[in-house]
């Protein structure tokens, strides 16, 4: 083991050096972006107030954080995203398994699912509004629908790449269906499930925010639209930044905590953290 460690030392040092320079460039890029923003705002080339100074945006942040209404909006949005995400992802795993395990259902339904997956889910919003009203119901359901598709398709495709020997072992041990699902399918499918979760969280966020912006009386999307209607651009931008952070943080946390069992570096492949 010691010898292996020594053998790996040189590449690790090189990787470290690369990651150091990457961090430097990132910081430089951010600083440049700030500078460009300020210059563009001060240049007078744009309609006044469209590109407010970062100072104004910072002030808007302070105002928001002191405002109890903001926390209500934030809480509602977070609730919608999480509930929609959990419902959509769970359904996605179940449907994905059904499509993948049974070749017949797969052949019948998967093309339909593929077509639906590529349409913008916001077209379902009018139906959802009629079904669930303009409250959290329509937001949760749109979020759930949004993240359902990538999960279902990712799991269905994953089932077909499971090593058939694993299934044969299950068969030769005469395992029950429930045992096979729990002890063979699910663990073998953890990589595509993790991918589905990471893709799904961002998409569920989009779904919830989209319906908040379209028609709603609460949530961060609604608050951002109100700020827009008041032409309070700094507050609107502050809210958008909070939304970005929320989505990014969710993705990061999922990547961090959805660890795959097995030797190290069997991590999720989509958007690795750090």
């Amino acid at each position: 083991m010691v010898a292996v460690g020594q053998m790996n030392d040189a590449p690790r040092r090189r990787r470290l050096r690369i990651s150091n320079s990457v961090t430097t460039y990132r910081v430089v890029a951010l600083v440049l972006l700030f500078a460009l923003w300020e210059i563009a705002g001060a240049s007078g080339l744009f309609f006044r107030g469209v590109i407010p100074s970062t100072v104004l945006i910072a002030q808007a942040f302070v105002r928001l954080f002191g405002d109890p209404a903001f926390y209500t909006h934030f809480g509602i949005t977070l609730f919608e995203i999480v509930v929609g995400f959990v419902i959509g992802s769970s359904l996605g795993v179940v449907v994905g398994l059904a499509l993948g395990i049974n070749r017949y259902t797969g052949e019948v339904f998967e093309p339909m699912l593929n077509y639906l997956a590529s349409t913008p889910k916001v077209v379902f919003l009018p139906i959802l509004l009629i079904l669930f009203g303009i409250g959290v119901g329509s937001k949760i359901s749109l979020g759930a629908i949004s993240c359902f598709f990538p999960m279902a398709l990712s799991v269905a495709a994953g089932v077909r790449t499971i090593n058939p020997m694993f299934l044969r072992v299950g068969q030769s041990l005469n395992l029950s269906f429930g045992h096979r699902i729990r002890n063979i399918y699910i663990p073998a499918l953890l990589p595509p499930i993790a991918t589905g979760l990471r893709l799904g969280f961002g998409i569920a966020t989009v779904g919830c925010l989209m319906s908040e912006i379209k028609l709603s009386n609460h949530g961060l999307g609604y608050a951002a639209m109100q700020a827009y209607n008041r032409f309070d651009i700094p507050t609107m931008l502050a809210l958008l930044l909070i939304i970005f952070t929320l989505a990014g943080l969710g993705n990061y946390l999922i990547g961090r905590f959805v660890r795959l069992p097995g030797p190290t570096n069997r991590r999720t492949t989509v958007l690795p953290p750090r």
Partner: protein
Amino acid sequence: MNDTVVIDTPSTAVGLPTLRIDRVTKSFQTAKGKITAVDDVSLDIRQGEFISIIGPSGCGKSTLMNMVGGLIADFDGQILLDGKAVRGCQPSIGMVFQEESTFPWRTAIENVAFPLEAAGMARDKRVARARDLLDLVGLTGFENHYPAELSGGMRQRIAIARTLAFEPRVLLMDEPFAALDEQTRLLLGDKVVQIQQQLRQTTMLITHNISEAVQLSDRVLIMTFRPGRIKRVVDIDLPRPRSSEMMGSEKFAKYVAEVWNDLREEASKGLRESEAAAGAR
């Protein structure tokens, strides 16, 4: 299931027929017509016996194993285990496959304990038994390694230990060493001989490696190329315990030559057929 640890299985009653394959025939319907993979095969395997089935590719030896193992339940004839008909999978017949079959998401010990876990055995009990089995296959110290961290030979030993966990009456192995290099294969063969000796495990091995068959078996069955029939049974009268060192002996060489003599004709038939098929394409 009884509670005795697998290693303590008594080595009694050698000689009674455990597995009886009685006039078994299996044909497949293919695009080119009906192919008879296994044709009227009858065979008795005695308690504690190690038999090898050897034959050219396409002789139906894997089909035969899948029928005994229960993966193919639709065939003509009968397979009897201790007098009871076998159709479909059952825990008393354990299978080890040629391909990689250890679960990459489980450590070595979790892999071996898996069948026991599925059967609902208590945790400390199944862990203790899995530890004994890992010891039996010579993997003590690797309990908490994942398959990806082990060599192919070690992974195959995990698969063997996992199959033995259920104390199968009959152990079926379908070319378990085919994917391994020659040296590993020889050493693993020694390990299998040792395990078999210790457990008196009734074993049926499918192989296309002649010296492996001679090294391990009490009897070697040579199958014909399509349709698969038993052409000849060679009794291997070499002293036990055996090891790969024996391969240099004159008697060993004589057995290898004897098996090859019968096998060659079948193998060339298989070769001609596959070349003809390639030519037709």
